[in-house]
């Protein structure tokens, strides 16, 4: 939905709906008139358009449900329940007005081991691998989505082509873990490791190293020391490439990418970051081919946030079982109450000291 469409849709809604939509988004929304309210909501939509849209759709749907039994009273009916209860202190708040908060049982539902099923790569994984045939790829996905699968498959394909693969990670410990992991997958003769204090199997087709070591290799190559491994280099995988923003070491990632030989493909794996498009655009501007960005924000295994009180009571953190994206204030009333209680008792504020 474009901003214009959204504006038109907002203008069609009665002001009560707008107020409900503005709750938690616009400060002191009850002060604003309809036109100003729309303006403020549109301003807010620049931060989270999707969240605003989906909420608006739910509100519209809800309204339609409400208005069907009493079509004539539709004008006055939705006004009444909205503002009154919100003013109550959180302590007395029963499950909050419109949407009932999720119960602990519902929150815990689904806990357990899924039935074993054959591994099918996610669409984004296939997409990244397919794109890697032609160009550099930037992957930005949440932690635990299966970036390693992409790395392994990409490495396998490049090695089948008789090309050298270099895999770098920011931490020595991670390099060691990956060395063990990849040795199990590809066989120990195919995998080598080069870190500041460890060098094993340095001529293997799949080399694991810290990014600093790769940078040094590239510098040596640039100043005329020929390294056979770089001639046959087909793929460079930079894991955890959000480290490019590390204050001390980020520069190493930039140097590595700038000096990466153009015949080698680059695969940048990173956790969710705000501006992966910038990274992709940057690569496009300095590499021979236009790079491809693969991003998604949906977790493979859904995440349920909870709140555990020091007395051992467990409650959902938010009103919904899943994370309500863009709504940090949709706290579960019980969690809110318990945390409030906790703060009252532990904070060295005037009242508790007495």
């Amino acid at each position, binding site marked *: 939905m474009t901003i214009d469409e959204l504006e038109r849709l907002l203008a069609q809604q009665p002001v009560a709906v707008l107020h409900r939509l503005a709750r938690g988004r616009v400060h002191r929304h009850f002060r604003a008139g309809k036109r100003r309210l729309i303006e403020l909501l549109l301003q807010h939509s620049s931060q989270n358009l999707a969240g605003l849209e989906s909420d608006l759709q739910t509100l519209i749907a809800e309204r339609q449900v409400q208005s069907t039994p009493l079509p004539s009273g539709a004008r006055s009916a939705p006004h009444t329940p909205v503002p009154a209860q919100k003013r109550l202190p959180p302590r007395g708040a029963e499950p909050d007005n419109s949407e009932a908060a999720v119960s602990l049982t519902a929150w815990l539902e689904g806990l357990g081991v899924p039935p074993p099923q054959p591994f099918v790569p996610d669409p984004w994984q296939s997409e990244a691998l397919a794109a890697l045939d032609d160009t550099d790829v930037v992957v930005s996905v949440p932690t635990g989505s299966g970036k390693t699968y992409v790395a392994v498959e990409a490495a396998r394909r490049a090695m089948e082509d008789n090309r050298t693969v270099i895999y770098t990670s920011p931490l020595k*410990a991670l390099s060691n873990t990956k060395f063990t992991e990849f040795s199990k997958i590809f066989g120990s003769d195919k995998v080598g490791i080069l870190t500041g204090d460890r060098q094993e199997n340095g001529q293997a087709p799949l080399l694991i190293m810290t990014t600093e070591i790769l940078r040094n290799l590239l510098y040596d190559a640039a100043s005329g020391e020929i390294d056979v491994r770089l001639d046959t280099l087909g793929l460079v995988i930079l894991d955890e490439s959000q480290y490019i923003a590390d204050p001390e070491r980020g520069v190493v990632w930039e140097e590595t990418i700038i000096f990466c030989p153009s015949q080698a493909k680059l695969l940048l794996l990173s956790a969710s970051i705000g501006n992966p498009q910038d990274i992709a655009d940057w690569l496009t501007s300095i590499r021979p081919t236009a790079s491809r960005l693969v991003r998604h924000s949906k977790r493979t295994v859904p995440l349920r946030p909870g709140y555990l009180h020091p007395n051992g009571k467990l409650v959902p953190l938010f009103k919904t079982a899943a994370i309500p994206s863009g709504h940090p204030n949709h706290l579960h009333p019980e969690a809110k109450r318990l945390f409030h209680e906790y703060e009252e008792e532990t904070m060295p504020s005037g009242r508790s000291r007495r």
Partner: protein
Amino acid sequence: MPPSIHPVDLITALRQKHLTPAIVFLTSRRACDEAMESFDVADIVLPPARQEVIAAALDRVIANYPSVAEHPLIPTVRRIGVAAHHAGHLPSWKIAIEELMRQGCLDAVFATTTLAAGVDFPARTVVITQSSIRKARDFTDLTIGEVQQIAGRAGRRGKDQVGFAVITPSPYIDLGVLTKGLTGHPESIDSQFTITYPMVLNLLKAHPHEQIHAILAKSFAQFQLNQRAELLERKLDALHVQMEPFGPRVCTDWITQWQTFDQARRQRPHRQQVKQQESPELTARFHFMTPGRVVGLTRGRGIVLRQYRSKGQRNPMISVLRPDGAVTECPAATVAEVFDRVFECDESSAFPWCSAASFDELHYQLTELPTRLPTLPILIPKVSEPLPDAIVQSLGDFPCPTCTSRPACQKDVAVASRLRQEQHRHIKSIQALRASLWHRFQERVEVLQKFGYLTPSAHLTEDGEWARLIRIDHSLLITELIRAEAFAGADPALLTGVMASIAHDDDRPGAFPRISTGLSSLLGQVRKLAESLSPYEDPPLLRADIAAVAERWIADPTLTWIGLCRLTTMAEGDIYRLLARTLEFLSQIHTLHATHPGLADSASKAIALIRRGVLEELP
């Protein structure tokens, strides 16, 4: 209520809800260790079957890494199935714990948030107890990206249908930071490009000086700077459009013209009304009508008691003591003569403007005055006749006052000059954004030229050729030390000690084992050199205790790992990391074998000596 949940209760609660295995992120290593201690007396032991599974898994790991066997946490791991995992542990221990976690043997691992990025194993549940993280020396709030990275460890693909991120409060937790972190969109990342000395040397080795500009332009830093520059350029374009109505008028650069005119107009001294009304004669005479002066008025004489200016018109006035003892106020203009006779007058600020004694004295003197008195010769300056149209005269250089577009200029100048100022500012910042990397590079080049690593034509000198191989932090200090032959004839132990103190950048306090005199004097020299280099490179901490620990490990080949750990209060993991990092620095020195054979030899001996005991066993 306790400030935070007790670890034993936490594990009980998690087990009860089937939320194990879990990773519990705590504030500090000490918190992790204390949590472990609290399990010593806990009775939440695992059923024997599971204990056996853990024991078997542990034995398999110990076969690979013997140092794990003596770890003090082993009994807790076996009995309860919980473990600590933080930077204070040896890598072998961390590998063992990660392996046990992967096999699903453990119920919980207590880790520090600082190392969240290094925790590379998932669990069903992640427990978050804090909203800030120790960075450098103080705590900062977790960013959205960090919260998501931490929470993202929850939920194992293929083993869990859902993952859980449980927040449990501890003192100083800010729930807002965490809820925002969970629901928000991760922050954008920014380039942290810095230009280091080895980078300059290596770039100049491979490319001529003229090409470097193009290479720097390929950096992400320049890409982002360009983005900002483009944004400014768009603003500049908009300004250009806004400036259109203010194009050339009668004069091309009418804004500057008007501004100069305006300035000149403002600076021109204001006409002073007083001066205009007063005759120059009066002004000159008024100076002499000071208290005590005898003046001749139209009728009789008097002695001036005070001089002042009248309130409204600012006319010069005097208070005069008359022969009959009265005090009268009269305009200075009514004074007919100013005599050359002054009496002492003790002034005061209230009527009668002098003290009673001096009033009487003056009164007496006034009656005693001779009839003829000499008048004061007063030079009266010649007044040049003011020109009739002073403004036009003083602004004669400007056409503005008579210009036809004067009203338009006067009206628009405020807006136009503001816009033009903005334009200039943007142009300047765009230039700075485009060229800043290059300037920083040039700065580094100048420093390297000064120290003789580069020739004035920016080619590598003999020293530069080998110095470019030192690609670590504090490279300038290390190369300068080598050039000063600080390590000439130094044995491997001394070299290691100094390298360790340069490599170590952690300010966690440590104990102070006895330091050898050789090392301490060498370290003194290094410190002096580092200080003199501080304008060009941040000096390292150069801690003596660190140097001593590393030296001891090399100097005494019979020293066991346990023995070394006993010498200092540093945690095992920290000592390990220190030695591993020193190893990296030494191997860089080892690459200088072509130019500095003695030093490289010493370094390789040190490398061989470091690798023993725990350091040999590990990947």
